[in-house]
Protein backbone atom coordinates (compact mmCIF):
# COMPACT_ATOMS: atom_id res chain seq x y z
CA UNK A 1 0.00 0.00 0.00
CA UNK A 2 1.32 3.38 -0.96
CA UNK A 3 -0.49 5.94 1.14
CA UNK A 4 -0.30 9.72 0.93
CA UNK A 5 -1.54 11.57 4.00
CA UNK A 6 -2.47 15.21 3.49
CA UNK A 7 -1.18 17.17 6.46
CA UNK A 8 -1.70 20.80 7.27
CA UNK A 9 0.41 22.64 9.83
CA UNK A 10 -2.06 24.85 11.73
CA UNK A 11 -1.65 27.33 14.58
CA UNK A 12 -1.88 25.35 17.82
CA UNK A 13 -5.49 25.89 18.93
CA UNK A 14 -4.45 25.16 22.52
CA UNK A 15 -1.87 27.96 22.50
CA UNK A 16 -4.47 30.70 22.71
CA UNK A 17 -2.12 32.75 20.52
CA UNK A 18 -3.68 32.08 17.12
CA UNK A 19 -4.53 35.30 15.33
CA UNK A 20 -4.59 37.08 11.99
CA UNK A 21 -1.92 39.51 10.89
CA UNK A 22 -2.67 42.98 9.51
CA UNK A 23 -2.93 41.41 6.03
CA UNK A 24 -5.86 39.29 7.31
CA UNK A 25 -3.82 36.14 6.87
CA UNK A 26 -2.97 33.70 9.64
CA UNK A 27 -0.11 35.17 11.66
CA UNK A 28 2.12 32.13 11.61
CA UNK A 29 4.72 33.73 13.85
CA UNK A 30 2.18 34.31 16.63
CA UNK A 31 1.36 30.72 17.56
CA UNK A 32 3.39 27.52 17.35
CA UNK A 33 2.38 25.27 14.44
CA UNK A 34 1.12 21.74 15.02
CA UNK A 35 -0.23 19.04 12.74
CA UNK A 36 -3.96 19.54 12.24
CA UNK A 37 -5.82 17.29 14.71
CA UNK A 38 -7.90 15.38 12.16
CA UNK A 39 -4.81 14.84 10.00
CA UNK A 40 -3.21 13.01 12.93
CA UNK A 41 -6.13 10.58 12.91
CA UNK A 42 -5.58 10.11 9.17
CA UNK A 43 -1.89 9.43 9.77
CA UNK A 44 -2.64 6.99 12.58
CA UNK A 45 -5.04 5.14 10.28
CA UNK A 46 -2.33 5.04 7.60
CA UNK A 47 0.23 3.68 10.08
CA UNK A 48 -2.13 0.87 11.10
CA UNK A 49 -2.86 0.02 7.46
CA UNK A 50 0.84 -0.18 6.67
CA UNK A 51 1.41 -2.34 9.74
CA UNK A 52 -1.14 -4.87 8.50
CA UNK A 53 -0.71 -4.60 4.72
CA UNK A 54 2.88 -3.36 4.33
CA UNK A 55 3.76 -0.30 2.32
CA UNK A 56 4.90 3.25 2.75
CA UNK A 57 3.45 6.54 3.89
CA UNK A 58 4.22 9.93 2.38
CA UNK A 59 3.10 13.11 4.11
CA UNK A 60 2.07 15.88 1.72
CA UNK A 61 1.75 19.47 2.89
CA UNK A 62 1.39 22.86 1.28
CA UNK A 63 2.79 25.23 3.88
CA UNK A 64 5.37 27.89 4.65
CA UNK A 65 9.05 27.02 4.56
CA UNK A 66 9.11 26.54 8.34
CA UNK A 67 6.82 23.49 8.05
CA UNK A 68 9.50 20.73 8.10
CA UNK A 69 9.70 21.08 11.88
CA UNK A 70 5.97 20.42 12.15
CA UNK A 71 6.06 17.57 9.64
CA UNK A 72 8.88 16.00 11.65
CA UNK A 73 6.31 14.91 14.23
CA UNK A 74 4.44 12.93 11.57
CA UNK A 75 7.72 11.35 10.50
CA UNK A 76 8.45 10.50 14.14
CA UNK A 77 5.05 8.82 14.40
CA UNK A 78 6.16 6.59 11.54
CA UNK A 79 5.53 8.20 8.15
CA UNK A 80 8.36 7.32 5.77
CA UNK A 81 8.91 10.64 4.03
CA UNK A 82 7.35 14.02 3.51
CA UNK A 83 6.80 16.25 0.53
CA UNK A 84 6.48 19.93 1.32
CA UNK A 85 5.16 22.26 -1.33
CA UNK A 86 6.34 25.68 -0.33
CA UNK A 87 6.74 28.85 -2.33
CA UNK A 88 6.44 32.51 -1.39
CA UNK A 89 4.00 32.87 -4.28
CA UNK A 90 1.54 30.54 -2.51
CA UNK A 91 0.92 32.90 0.42
CA UNK A 92 -2.71 34.01 0.55
CA UNK A 93 -4.02 31.23 -1.70
CA UNK A 94 -7.73 30.51 -1.30
CA UNK A 95 -9.31 27.08 -0.88
CA UNK A 96 -9.65 26.44 -4.59
CA UNK A 97 -6.05 27.37 -5.38
CA UNK A 98 -4.92 25.09 -2.56
CA UNK A 99 -6.85 22.21 -4.12
CA UNK A 100 -5.16 22.89 -7.45
CA UNK A 101 -1.71 22.83 -5.86
CA UNK A 102 -2.36 19.64 -3.89
CA UNK A 103 -3.68 17.98 -7.06
CA UNK A 104 -0.55 18.96 -8.97
CA UNK A 105 1.63 17.61 -6.16
CA UNK A 106 -0.33 14.33 -6.04
CA UNK A 107 0.10 13.93 -9.77
CA UNK A 108 3.82 13.53 -9.11
CA UNK A 109 3.34 10.81 -6.48
CA UNK A 110 2.35 7.17 -6.71
CA UNK A 111 -0.39 6.08 -4.36
CA UNK A 112 -3.17 3.60 -3.70
CA UNK A 113 -4.85 5.71 -1.05
CA UNK A 114 -4.91 9.40 -0.19
CA UNK A 115 -6.01 10.08 3.38
CA UNK A 116 -7.04 13.51 4.65
CA UNK A 117 -8.59 14.85 7.85
CA UNK A 118 -12.28 15.74 7.43
CA UNK A 119 -11.50 19.38 8.17
CA UNK A 120 -8.88 21.63 9.74
CA UNK A 121 -8.97 23.42 13.07
CA UNK A 122 -8.06 26.79 11.53
CA UNK A 123 -10.36 27.05 8.52
CA UNK A 124 -12.92 24.34 9.38
CA UNK A 125 -14.09 24.28 5.74
CA UNK A 126 -14.02 20.55 5.12
CA UNK A 127 -14.44 20.91 1.36
CA UNK A 128 -10.87 20.15 0.23
CA UNK A 129 -11.19 16.33 0.22
CA UNK A 130 -14.24 16.38 -2.09
CA UNK A 131 -12.82 19.07 -4.34
CA UNK A 132 -9.52 17.22 -4.64
CA UNK A 133 -11.21 13.89 -5.37
CA UNK A 134 -13.37 15.53 -8.04
CA UNK A 135 -10.42 17.28 -9.67
CA UNK A 136 -8.36 14.08 -9.73
CA UNK A 137 -11.26 11.83 -10.71
CA UNK A 138 -10.73 9.73 -7.57
CA UNK A 139 -13.57 8.07 -5.69
CA UNK A 140 -14.27 9.91 -2.42
CA UNK A 141 -15.05 7.96 0.73
CA UNK A 142 -15.69 10.62 3.34
CA UNK A 143 -16.19 10.72 7.11
CA UNK A 144 -14.43 7.43 7.65
CA UNK A 145 -14.71 5.56 10.95
CA UNK A 146 -12.94 2.46 9.58
CA UNK A 147 -10.85 1.77 6.47
CA UNK A 148 -10.42 -1.74 5.06
CA UNK A 149 -8.41 -1.93 1.87
CA UNK A 150 -8.14 -5.09 -0.21
CA UNK A 151 -5.06 -4.30 -2.29
CA UNK A 152 -5.12 -7.67 -4.10
CA UNK A 153 -8.66 -7.02 -5.31
CA UNK A 154 -7.83 -3.35 -5.92
CA UNK A 155 -10.59 -1.97 -3.75
CA UNK A 156 -11.25 -0.34 -0.39
CA UNK A 157 -14.18 -0.45 2.00
CA UNK A 158 -14.96 2.37 4.40
CA UNK A 159 -17.45 2.71 7.24
CA UNK A 160 -18.78 6.20 6.71
CA UNK A 161 -20.40 7.97 9.64
CA UNK A 162 -23.93 9.15 8.88
CA UNK A 163 -26.66 10.46 11.14
CA UNK A 164 -27.58 7.63 13.50
CA UNK A 165 -25.14 5.07 12.16
CA UNK A 166 -22.87 4.02 9.30
CA UNK A 167 -22.84 3.38 5.58
CA UNK A 168 -20.48 0.72 4.31
CA UNK A 169 -18.99 2.10 1.09
CA UNK A 170 -16.79 0.42 -1.47
CA UNK A 171 -14.69 1.87 -4.26
CA UNK A 172 -11.83 0.84 -6.51
CA UNK A 173 -8.28 1.94 -5.68
CA UNK A 174 -6.77 4.47 -5.89
CA UNK A 175 -9.22 6.40 -3.73
CA UNK A 176 -9.38 9.38 -1.40
CA UNK A 177 -10.64 8.90 2.16
CA UNK A 178 -11.45 11.71 4.60
CA UNK A 179 -10.78 10.67 8.16
CA UNK A 180 -12.42 11.22 11.55
CA UNK A 181 -11.41 10.73 15.13
CA UNK A 182 -13.44 7.50 15.19
CA UNK A 183 -10.50 5.80 13.43
CA UNK A 184 -8.58 5.75 16.69
CA UNK A 185 -6.27 7.88 18.80
CA UNK A 186 -2.96 8.88 17.22
CA UNK A 187 0.12 7.33 18.80
CA UNK A 188 2.80 9.33 20.51
CA UNK A 189 6.14 9.29 18.71
CA UNK A 190 8.57 6.89 20.39
CA UNK A 191 12.10 7.98 21.18
CA UNK A 192 13.28 5.65 18.42
CA UNK A 193 10.78 7.24 16.06
CA UNK A 194 11.98 10.72 16.95
CA UNK A 195 15.58 9.72 16.31
CA UNK A 196 14.68 8.05 13.01
CA UNK A 197 12.67 11.08 11.87
CA UNK A 198 15.80 13.22 11.85
CA UNK A 199 17.20 11.35 8.90
CA UNK A 200 13.95 10.95 6.98
CA UNK A 201 13.55 12.88 3.78
CA UNK A 202 11.47 16.06 3.56
CA UNK A 203 11.44 16.79 -0.16
CA UNK A 204 10.81 20.47 -0.79
CA UNK A 205 8.96 21.39 -3.97
CA UNK A 206 8.49 24.87 -5.37
CA UNK A 207 5.66 25.88 -7.69
CA UNK A 208 8.08 25.61 -10.60
CA UNK A 209 8.81 22.00 -9.58
CA UNK A 210 5.10 21.17 -9.67
CA UNK A 211 4.37 22.50 -13.11
CA UNK A 212 1.03 24.01 -14.04
CA UNK A 213 -1.73 24.12 -11.41
CA UNK A 214 -5.45 24.10 -12.18
CA UNK A 215 -6.07 27.60 -10.80
CA UNK A 216 -3.82 30.61 -10.29
CA UNK A 217 -2.33 30.82 -6.78
CA UNK A 218 -1.44 33.41 -4.17
CA UNK A 219 -3.23 36.31 -2.57
CA UNK A 220 -3.44 38.40 -5.74
CA UNK A 221 -5.25 35.62 -7.58
CA UNK A 222 -7.55 34.66 -4.72
CA UNK A 223 -11.21 34.59 -5.74
CA UNK A 224 -12.26 35.37 -2.17
CA UNK A 225 -11.19 38.30 0.00
CA UNK A 226 -11.56 39.23 3.65
CA UNK A 227 -13.61 42.41 4.04
CA UNK A 228 -13.57 42.84 7.82
CA UNK A 229 -12.33 41.15 10.99
CA UNK A 230 -14.08 41.86 14.28
CA UNK A 231 -14.17 40.47 17.79
CA UNK A 232 -17.27 38.37 18.46
CA UNK A 233 -20.20 39.97 20.22
CA UNK A 234 -19.51 39.81 23.95
CA UNK A 235 -21.43 37.30 26.03
CA UNK A 236 -23.08 38.65 29.15
CA UNK A 237 -21.33 38.47 32.50
CA UNK A 238 -21.16 35.09 34.23
CA UNK A 239 -23.26 34.59 37.33
CA UNK A 240 -21.52 32.21 39.70
CA UNK A 241 -23.40 30.23 42.32
CA UNK A 242 -21.96 28.55 45.38
CA UNK A 243 -24.79 27.00 47.32
CA UNK A 244 -26.15 23.68 48.48
CA UNK A 245 -27.15 21.29 45.74
CA UNK A 246 -30.85 21.85 46.38
CA UNK A 247 -30.53 25.65 46.35
CA UNK A 248 -28.29 25.53 43.27
CA UNK A 249 -30.83 23.34 41.48
CA UNK A 250 -33.60 25.81 42.32
CA UNK A 251 -31.46 28.69 41.03
CA UNK A 252 -30.76 26.84 37.79
CA UNK A 253 -34.45 26.07 37.31
CA UNK A 254 -35.40 29.71 38.01
CA UNK A 255 -32.75 30.89 35.58
CA UNK A 256 -34.00 28.52 32.86
CA UNK A 257 -37.62 29.45 33.51
CA UNK A 258 -36.78 33.16 33.23
CA UNK A 259 -35.19 32.50 29.85
CA UNK A 260 -38.14 30.33 28.80
CA UNK A 261 -35.90 27.31 28.46
CA UNK A 262 -38.06 24.89 30.38
CA UNK A 263 -40.45 22.78 28.29
Amino acid at each position, binding site marked *: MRIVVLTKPVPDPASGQDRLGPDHRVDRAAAPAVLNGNDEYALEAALRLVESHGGEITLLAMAPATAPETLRKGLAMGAHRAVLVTDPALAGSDIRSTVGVLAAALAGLEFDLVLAGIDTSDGFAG*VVPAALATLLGLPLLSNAAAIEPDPAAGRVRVRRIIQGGYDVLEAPLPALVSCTQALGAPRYPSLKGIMAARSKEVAVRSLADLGPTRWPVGGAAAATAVVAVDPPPARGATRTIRASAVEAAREIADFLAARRLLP
Partner: protein
Amino acid sequence: MSGRVVVVGEVVDGRPTRLSTEVATLGRRLGEALGRPVVGVLVGAGAGEAGASLAAYLPEVLTVELPDLADLAPAPRVAAETAALVEPEDGPILVGASPDGRDVAGALSVLLDRPVLANAVAVEAGPEGPTAVKTIFGGKLVVRSRFVGPPGIVTVRPSSVDAAPADAPGRVVARTATAVALGPPVRRLERILETAGEVPLEEAAVVVVGGRGVGGAEGFALLEELAALLGGTVGATRAAVDAGWIGYARQIGQTGKVVKPRLYLGLGVSGAIQHKVGMQTAETIVAVNRDPDAPLAEYADLYVVGDLFEVGRALVAELRRRRDAGTT
Protein backbone atom coordinates in the same frame (compact mmCIF):
# COMPACT_ATOMS: atom_id res chain seq x y z
CA MET B 1 -32.43 38.26 -16.10
CA SER B 2 -29.83 38.62 -13.37
CA GLY B 3 -28.33 35.48 -11.91
CA ARG B 4 -30.20 33.51 -9.31
CA VAL B 5 -29.24 32.78 -5.74
CA VAL B 6 -29.14 28.96 -5.68
CA VAL B 7 -30.00 26.93 -2.59
CA VAL B 8 -28.78 23.35 -2.74
CA GLY B 9 -30.96 21.26 -0.44
CA GLU B 10 -30.44 17.77 0.95
CA VAL B 11 -33.01 14.98 0.94
CA VAL B 12 -33.23 12.39 3.70
CA ASP B 13 -36.13 9.92 3.77
CA GLY B 14 -38.16 11.92 1.27
CA ARG B 15 -37.85 15.17 3.22
CA PRO B 16 -35.54 18.14 3.09
CA THR B 17 -33.24 18.20 6.12
CA ARG B 18 -33.81 20.92 8.71
CA LEU B 19 -30.52 22.47 7.63
CA SER B 20 -31.90 22.67 4.07
CA THR B 21 -34.89 24.68 5.30
CA GLU B 22 -32.54 26.99 7.21
CA VAL B 23 -30.37 27.54 4.15
CA ALA B 24 -33.51 28.09 2.05
CA THR B 25 -34.68 30.76 4.50
CA LEU B 26 -31.28 32.43 4.38
CA GLY B 27 -31.19 32.21 0.57
CA ARG B 28 -34.68 33.70 0.19
CA ARG B 29 -33.78 36.69 2.38
CA LEU B 30 -30.44 37.14 0.61
CA GLY B 31 -32.22 37.12 -2.75
CA GLU B 32 -34.61 39.81 -1.52
CA ALA B 33 -31.71 41.90 -0.21
CA LEU B 34 -29.71 41.51 -3.42
CA GLY B 35 -32.75 41.93 -5.65
CA ARG B 36 -32.15 38.59 -7.30
CA PRO B 37 -34.40 35.58 -7.92
CA VAL B 38 -33.86 32.52 -5.75
CA VAL B 39 -34.14 28.89 -6.75
CA GLY B 40 -33.80 25.71 -4.74
CA VAL B 41 -32.30 22.48 -6.06
CA LEU B 42 -33.05 19.06 -4.59
CA VAL B 43 -31.38 15.97 -6.02
CA GLY B 44 -31.70 12.42 -4.79
CA ALA B 45 -34.00 9.56 -3.91
CA GLY B 46 -37.29 11.14 -2.81
CA ALA B 47 -36.42 14.58 -4.20
CA GLY B 48 -39.81 14.96 -5.88
CA GLU B 49 -41.63 14.35 -2.62
CA ALA B 50 -39.24 16.59 -0.65
CA GLY B 51 -39.55 19.40 -3.21
CA ALA B 52 -43.03 20.36 -2.00
CA SER B 53 -41.75 20.75 1.57
CA LEU B 54 -38.80 22.88 0.53
CA ALA B 55 -41.06 25.01 -1.70
CA ALA B 56 -42.67 26.33 1.50
CA TYR B 57 -39.49 28.35 1.91
CA LEU B 58 -38.63 29.26 -1.66
CA PRO B 59 -40.41 30.66 -4.73
CA GLU B 60 -39.15 27.82 -6.91
CA VAL B 61 -37.59 24.42 -6.34
CA LEU B 62 -36.08 22.26 -9.07
CA THR B 63 -36.11 18.56 -8.26
CA VAL B 64 -34.18 15.72 -9.82
CA GLU B 65 -35.43 12.31 -8.75
CA LEU B 66 -32.62 9.75 -8.56
CA PRO B 67 -34.06 6.51 -7.19
CA ASP B 68 -30.84 4.58 -7.81
CA LEU B 69 -28.90 6.95 -5.57
CA ALA B 70 -29.73 4.71 -2.63
CA ASP B 71 -26.99 2.33 -3.82
CA LEU B 72 -24.30 5.00 -4.17
CA ALA B 73 -22.45 7.56 -2.11
CA PRO B 74 -24.65 10.52 -3.04
CA ALA B 75 -22.35 13.54 -3.23
CA PRO B 76 -20.78 13.07 -6.69
CA ARG B 77 -24.14 12.51 -8.40
CA VAL B 78 -25.86 15.28 -6.45
CA ALA B 79 -23.05 17.67 -7.36
CA ALA B 80 -23.11 16.65 -11.03
CA GLU B 81 -26.89 17.07 -11.37
CA THR B 82 -26.81 20.34 -9.45
CA ALA B 83 -24.02 21.66 -11.64
CA ALA B 84 -26.12 20.88 -14.70
CA LEU B 85 -28.93 23.14 -13.38
CA VAL B 86 -26.74 26.14 -12.51
CA GLU B 87 -26.43 28.87 -15.15
CA PRO B 88 -23.14 30.75 -15.58
CA GLU B 89 -24.60 33.99 -14.20
CA ASP B 90 -26.10 32.30 -11.11
CA GLY B 91 -24.65 32.76 -7.63
CA PRO B 92 -23.97 32.62 -4.84
CA ILE B 93 -24.71 28.93 -4.43
CA LEU B 94 -25.61 28.13 -0.83
CA VAL B 95 -25.03 24.63 0.53
CA GLY B 96 -25.62 23.39 4.07
CA ALA B 97 -22.37 22.47 5.83
CA SER B 98 -23.49 18.94 6.73
CA PRO B 99 -21.11 16.06 5.96
CA ASP B 100 -22.85 15.43 2.62
CA GLY B 101 -23.17 19.17 1.99
CA ARG B 102 -19.44 19.70 2.39
CA ASP B 103 -18.78 16.89 -0.10
CA VAL B 104 -21.29 18.38 -2.55
CA ALA B 105 -19.81 21.87 -2.15
CA GLY B 106 -16.26 20.64 -2.71
CA ALA B 107 -17.26 18.74 -5.84
CA LEU B 108 -19.36 21.66 -7.13
CA SER B 109 -16.46 24.06 -6.76
CA VAL B 110 -14.50 21.99 -9.27
CA LEU B 111 -17.42 21.15 -11.59
CA LEU B 112 -18.57 24.79 -11.77
CA ASP B 113 -15.09 26.28 -11.44
CA ARG B 114 -16.23 28.45 -8.53
CA PRO B 115 -14.47 29.55 -5.33
CA VAL B 116 -15.76 28.56 -1.88
CA LEU B 117 -16.43 30.51 1.30
CA ALA B 118 -16.88 27.92 4.00
CA ASN B 119 -18.80 27.56 7.21
CA ALA B 120 -20.81 30.78 7.13
CA VAL B 121 -23.15 31.66 9.99
CA ALA B 122 -24.74 34.43 7.90
CA VAL B 123 -24.63 35.76 4.36
CA GLU B 124 -25.15 39.49 3.96
CA ALA B 125 -25.83 41.64 0.92
CA GLY B 126 -22.66 43.72 1.11
CA PRO B 127 -21.82 46.73 -1.06
CA GLU B 128 -19.56 44.53 -3.16
CA GLY B 129 -21.95 41.59 -3.38
CA PRO B 130 -22.76 38.71 -1.07
CA THR B 131 -20.61 38.63 2.04
CA ALA B 132 -20.18 35.49 4.14
CA VAL B 133 -19.77 35.81 7.90
CA LYS B 134 -17.83 33.13 9.76
CA THR B 135 -15.95 32.73 13.01
CA ILE B 136 -12.36 31.49 13.15
CA PHE B 137 -9.92 30.31 15.79
CA GLY B 138 -12.67 28.84 17.86
CA GLY B 139 -14.84 31.94 17.80
CA LYS B 140 -12.14 34.43 18.73
CA LEU B 141 -12.69 36.42 15.56
CA VAL B 142 -15.60 37.13 13.24
CA VAL B 143 -14.49 37.37 9.62
CA ARG B 144 -16.49 38.79 6.75
CA SER B 145 -15.40 37.64 3.30
CA ARG B 146 -16.63 38.29 -0.20
CA PHE B 147 -16.00 36.87 -3.64
CA VAL B 148 -13.63 38.65 -5.95
CA GLY B 149 -15.39 38.40 -9.28
CA PRO B 150 -18.43 36.21 -9.81
CA PRO B 151 -20.02 34.81 -6.64
CA GLY B 152 -19.17 31.23 -5.83
CA ILE B 153 -20.26 28.64 -3.28
CA VAL B 154 -21.02 29.35 0.38
CA THR B 155 -21.40 26.54 2.89
CA VAL B 156 -23.72 27.42 5.78
CA ARG B 157 -23.42 26.02 9.29
CA PRO B 158 -26.39 24.33 10.95
CA SER B 159 -28.57 26.49 13.24
CA SER B 160 -27.27 29.73 11.75
CA VAL B 161 -30.81 30.96 11.02
CA ASP B 162 -34.26 29.95 12.20
CA ALA B 163 -36.13 28.35 9.33
CA ALA B 164 -39.20 30.43 8.41
CA PRO B 165 -41.57 29.60 5.55
CA ALA B 166 -42.33 32.21 2.89
CA ASP B 167 -45.68 34.03 2.80
CA ALA B 168 -46.79 31.79 -0.03
CA PRO B 169 -45.38 28.42 -1.12
CA GLY B 170 -43.38 28.31 -4.34
CA ARG B 171 -43.66 25.99 -7.29
CA VAL B 172 -41.92 22.68 -7.79
CA VAL B 173 -40.44 21.89 -11.18
CA ALA B 174 -39.34 18.32 -11.84
CA ARG B 175 -36.26 18.01 -14.02
CA THR B 176 -34.80 14.93 -15.62
CA ALA B 177 -31.43 13.59 -14.57
CA THR B 178 -28.89 14.37 -17.25
CA ALA B 179 -25.46 14.46 -15.69
CA VAL B 180 -22.83 11.82 -15.12
CA ALA B 181 -20.62 11.93 -12.06
CA LEU B 182 -16.88 12.10 -12.62
CA GLY B 183 -14.70 9.24 -11.53
CA PRO B 184 -15.56 5.68 -10.58
CA PRO B 185 -18.74 5.29 -8.51
CA VAL B 186 -18.59 4.69 -4.78
CA ARG B 187 -21.06 1.91 -4.05
CA ARG B 188 -23.05 1.69 -0.85
CA LEU B 189 -23.12 -1.93 0.27
CA GLU B 190 -24.98 -1.58 3.52
CA ARG B 191 -26.55 0.90 5.92
CA ILE B 192 -26.23 0.23 9.64
CA LEU B 193 -28.52 2.38 11.78
CA GLU B 194 -27.80 2.23 15.48
CA THR B 195 -29.62 5.21 16.87
CA ALA B 196 -32.15 5.97 14.15
CA GLY B 197 -34.73 8.57 15.07
CA GLU B 198 -32.48 10.27 17.60
CA VAL B 199 -32.40 14.05 17.29
CA PRO B 200 -29.13 14.98 15.57
CA LEU B 201 -26.83 16.72 18.04
CA GLU B 202 -26.53 19.73 15.72
CA GLU B 203 -30.30 20.16 15.62
CA ALA B 204 -31.11 19.76 19.30
CA ALA B 205 -32.49 22.87 21.03
CA VAL B 206 -31.16 21.65 24.37
CA VAL B 207 -27.90 19.76 24.81
CA VAL B 208 -26.86 18.26 28.16
CA VAL B 209 -23.12 17.64 27.99
CA GLY B 210 -20.88 15.45 30.11
CA GLY B 211 -17.14 15.76 30.50
CA ARG B 212 -14.38 13.97 32.32
CA GLY B 213 -16.12 14.72 35.62
CA VAL B 214 -18.96 12.34 34.74
CA GLY B 215 -16.53 9.55 35.56
CA GLY B 216 -18.01 6.69 33.56
CA ALA B 217 -20.68 5.40 31.20
CA GLU B 218 -23.11 4.91 34.09
CA GLY B 219 -22.74 8.59 34.99
CA PHE B 220 -24.34 9.50 31.67
CA ALA B 221 -27.65 8.02 32.85
CA LEU B 222 -28.14 11.15 34.95
CA LEU B 223 -27.49 13.30 31.90
CA GLU B 224 -30.01 11.29 29.87
CA GLU B 225 -32.57 11.92 32.60
CA LEU B 226 -31.88 15.66 32.59
CA ALA B 227 -31.98 15.75 28.80
CA ALA B 228 -35.37 14.02 28.81
CA LEU B 229 -36.74 16.51 31.35
CA LEU B 230 -35.41 19.47 29.37
CA GLY B 231 -36.52 18.14 25.99
CA GLY B 232 -32.97 17.78 24.76
CA THR B 233 -30.26 15.33 23.88
CA VAL B 234 -26.92 14.30 25.38
CA GLY B 235 -23.50 15.40 24.17
CA ALA B 236 -19.97 14.87 25.45
CA THR B 237 -16.45 16.20 25.47
CA ARG B 238 -13.61 14.42 23.75
CA ALA B 239 -12.29 13.20 27.11
CA ALA B 240 -15.56 11.37 27.78
CA VAL B 241 -15.60 9.93 24.24
CA ASP B 242 -11.95 8.86 24.38
CA ALA B 243 -12.68 7.13 27.68
CA GLY B 244 -15.32 5.07 25.87
CA TRP B 245 -18.23 6.28 28.04
CA ILE B 246 -20.25 7.47 25.03
CA GLY B 247 -20.00 7.29 21.22
CA TYR B 248 -18.06 9.62 18.96
CA ALA B 249 -21.32 10.76 17.31
CA ARG B 250 -22.08 12.60 20.56
CA GLN B 251 -18.79 14.52 20.68
CA ILE B 252 -18.85 18.30 20.64
CA GLY B 253 -15.74 20.28 19.79
CA GLN B 254 -12.79 20.59 17.51
CA THR B 255 -12.74 17.08 16.07
CA GLY B 256 -16.43 16.50 16.76
CA LYS B 257 -19.63 18.44 16.13
CA VAL B 258 -20.35 22.14 16.32
CA VAL B 259 -23.63 22.84 18.08
CA LYS B 260 -25.65 25.99 18.59
CA PRO B 261 -28.47 25.00 20.93
CA ARG B 262 -30.77 27.37 22.79
CA LEU B 263 -29.47 25.80 26.00
CA TYR B 264 -26.13 24.14 26.69
CA LEU B 265 -25.99 22.50 30.12
CA GLY B 266 -22.50 21.22 30.91
CA LEU B 267 -21.82 18.81 33.78
CA GLY B 268 -18.22 18.18 34.74
CA VAL B 269 -17.06 20.00 31.61
CA SER B 270 -14.00 22.23 31.95
CA GLY B 271 -14.66 24.03 28.67
CA ALA B 272 -11.14 24.04 27.24
CA ILE B 273 -10.65 25.62 23.83
CA GLN B 274 -10.98 22.31 21.94
CA HIS B 275 -14.50 21.96 23.36
CA LYS B 276 -15.33 25.66 23.32
CA VAL B 277 -15.05 25.83 19.52
CA GLY B 278 -17.96 23.43 19.31
CA MET B 279 -20.41 25.11 21.68
CA GLN B 280 -19.62 28.73 22.44
CA THR B 281 -22.36 30.08 20.19
CA ALA B 282 -25.00 28.37 22.33
CA GLU B 283 -27.60 30.98 23.28
CA THR B 284 -27.47 30.14 26.97
CA ILE B 285 -24.65 28.28 28.70
CA VAL B 286 -25.13 26.76 32.15
CA ALA B 287 -22.41 24.71 33.79
CA VAL B 288 -21.90 22.68 36.95
CA ASN B 289 -18.33 21.93 37.92
CA ARG B 290 -16.32 21.41 41.10
CA ASP B 291 -13.50 23.58 39.76
CA PRO B 292 -14.27 27.28 40.25
CA ASP B 293 -11.42 28.21 37.87
CA ALA B 294 -12.29 26.02 34.87
CA PRO B 295 -12.31 27.91 31.53
CA LEU B 296 -16.11 27.55 31.31
CA ALA B 297 -16.43 29.74 34.42
CA GLU B 298 -15.37 32.63 32.19
CA TYR B 299 -17.97 32.29 29.45
CA ALA B 300 -20.93 30.49 30.97
CA ASP B 301 -24.04 32.56 31.69
CA LEU B 302 -24.65 30.65 34.89
CA TYR B 303 -21.84 28.75 36.62
CA VAL B 304 -22.54 26.51 39.58
CA VAL B 305 -19.54 25.49 41.66
CA GLY B 306 -20.45 22.08 42.99
CA ASP B 307 -20.59 18.33 42.58
CA LEU B 308 -22.27 17.49 39.30
CA PHE B 309 -24.01 14.42 40.69
CA GLU B 310 -25.41 16.18 43.75
CA VAL B 311 -26.53 19.24 41.79
CA GLY B 312 -27.64 17.11 38.83
CA ARG B 313 -29.84 14.87 40.98
CA ALA B 314 -31.27 17.88 42.80
CA LEU B 315 -32.01 19.46 39.43
CA VAL B 316 -33.80 16.31 38.26
CA ALA B 317 -35.95 16.49 41.40
CA GLU B 318 -36.59 20.21 40.98
CA LEU B 319 -37.53 19.89 37.29
CA ARG B 320 -39.86 16.99 38.06
CA ARG B 321 -41.47 18.96 40.86
CA ARG B 322 -42.09 21.95 38.58
CA ARG B 323 -43.34 19.77 35.74
CA ASP B 324 -45.78 17.97 38.01
CA ALA B 325 -46.89 21.22 39.64
CA GLY B 326 -47.27 22.79 36.21
CA THR B 327 -45.50 25.92 37.44
CA THR B 328 -43.00 26.20 34.64
